[in-house]
């Protein structure tokens, strides 16, 4: 009967050990795989939406008619996706979103009239983005520019 006082100590130690083990397990499971997965899924969805909005902004910046014209239009891009900044660049009439996380990416084709000669430039999400369309002597150039 000398070890009677040990029983509650062992019991409490066992319980707290179990709880700690459980919390550690759940935390690892959540932050190791579930949360990053959700963050990437949400980031990919936001990237798609941002690209689609940016593509419509570019398409609507093209002026009607045939005369010389210069049009500038600001484009709203989310500053960060999945907590990090990213770039959007033009690649052969396609907008490509480049993000440091491999789970987040996207590309979208632009619907532009045949009169558009080429699309160049890039946006970085930490800067204000504008699209400039210059039509001079029959050539129309669409440039993605950052200002300020």
């Amino acid at each position, binding site marked *: 009967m000398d070890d009677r006082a040990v029983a509650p100590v062992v019991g409490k130690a*066992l319980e707290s050990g179990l709880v700690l083990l459980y919390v550690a397990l759940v935390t690892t499971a959540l932050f190791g795989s579930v949360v990053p997965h959700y963050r990437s899924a949400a980031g990919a969805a936001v990237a798609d939406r941002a690209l689609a909005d940016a593509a419509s902004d570019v398409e609507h910046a093209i002026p*009607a008619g045939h005369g010389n014209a210069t049009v500038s239009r600001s484009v709203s891009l989310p500053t960060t996706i999945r907590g990090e900044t990213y770039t959007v660049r033009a690649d052969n009439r396609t907008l490509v979103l480049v993000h440091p996380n491999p789970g987040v990416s996207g590309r979208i084709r632009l619907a532009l009239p045949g009169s558009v000669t080429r699309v160049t430039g890039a946006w970085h999400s930490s800067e204000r983005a504008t699209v400039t369309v210059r039509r001079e002597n029959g050539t129309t150039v669409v440039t993605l520019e950052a200002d300020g």
Partner: protein
Amino acid sequence: MRAQLNLPSLGVALLLVTAAVGLSLTVAQGAFAGAEREPVRSHAANALADRLVAADGPLAKRENVLDGDELDALNASQLRAAFPVVGNRTVAVRLDDRTLARTGAVSNPTTVRRVVLVANTTTRTLAPALSTGELTIPRRTGRVTVRIDPPTGTTVRAVRVNDRTVLLNDSGLRGTFSIRASRWATTTLRFDADGPLPAGSVRVTYRVERTTKGVLVVAVDA
């Protein structure tokens, strides 16, 4: 061993917490699935519809007015070539119930509708006998082609459109002439001739555009 009786209740508690976590994850998954949209696809559908009806588009005569002949000639490969936004997607373009072009079978598409006019142009020719020298064109048109071939002994000196002289030659007009007219006013041609103009000595050709309303349906699949 009485103190270790707490262990089963702890186990049950942990089990309950696990169930709660699992439930929240399921709810979160459902919320994600419910908020899932296809922004890139709907952009493709909207952009394609916009390009189809745009004034400088390959099928359009004017903004929202499509050329009926071009629509009849449209096919899948042309659609891909003229509208690069289609890319590798499966796209169907319909006018009301008539399929104009289809790059494959669309099963669960994003659909965009646009109300359009379809213009069909036909050429008509008038060659009546002109007793008064006047001819009113029954439809408004932007351009009239006149072929003057008067009988011997008759000279057509001038042609007037709504009292505006457009052709004048004192020694006589002969041949085919193109005359601009107004689409916003009825055109009356007046031929100044010093003799009779029997049927066929003046042939007037004009183009008539007939427009019908329709709904252009653009369906874009993955």
